[in-house]
């Protein structure tokens, strides 16, 4: 029953995490995601977190809360956050909240060597 909600890949050399979110992000799934992602981030303490939204087919403002929360955690850890490939709808939600002024939003592929474990 539990569907895969994310793929977490850590690049040891570059100290980067590529977090690919998958499927539907709402308040229910965000609560699960938050818990598991934070545990992994605290363990790895990366310099850079990519949040790749290309695999997300539904997201509401709870997804926004999830991204904002991870951004704050990364800031505390001294790292940066970049949001990748939001759908036009996800982008609209991010923009409604003025997030593009706070977090870098980019449209691109994470190269294989960047997302390798």
């Amino acid at each position: 029953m539990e569907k895969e909600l994310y793929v977490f890949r850590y690049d040891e050399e570059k100290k980067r995490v590529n977090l690919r979110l998958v499927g539907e992000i709402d308040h229910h799934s965000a609560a699960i995601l938050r818990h598991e992602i934070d545990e992994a981030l605290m363990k790895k303490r990366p310099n850079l977190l990519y949040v790749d939204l290309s695999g997300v087919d539904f997201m509401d403002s709870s997804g926004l809360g999830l991204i904002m929360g991870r951004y704050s955690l990364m800031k505390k850890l001294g790292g940066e956050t970049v949001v990748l490939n939001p759908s036009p709808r996800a982008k609209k939600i991010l923009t409604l909240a003025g997030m593009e002024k706070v977090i870098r939003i980019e449209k691109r592929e994470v190269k294989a060597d960047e997302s390798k474990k």
Partner: protein
Amino acid sequence: MKAKNKVINSIKMNFPSLSVNESAARAMVAAFSAQADPTTTELADIKCAVSEAVTNCIVHAYPDSIGEIYISVKILEGRKILIEIKDKGRGIEDIDLAKTPLYTGAPGEERSGMGFTVMESFMDEMKVRSRVEKGTTVLLLKRLTQRR
């Protein structure tokens, strides 16, 4: 919200405020609304707005308990969809404040405070009625584009 238009079809549902029901609720409203032949974008707008309203019932109306959530969907003449999402929970003291972008009454919970803003921007009309300790009703109206 002037719902003077004739009701072509309608459906009602209610379910307990378990967060696992968020996806089922928006999917059911979308499945019924699909009868009115909305565009993919219109259907996604509806799904997102319903998800926001239902989440608010779960998170804010019944913060420490499980209560009932009531949804009614009406397809109205003139290609309109009217959705009512109701709870009998805690209620909202100051509705204008609650609607303010980025305002949240639950700052510890990692809420973005953008729920009402999302509902307003994805639907054509939104109306909130609430009484403290009695509950809240959110009315959402979507006007579908004409198709031929």
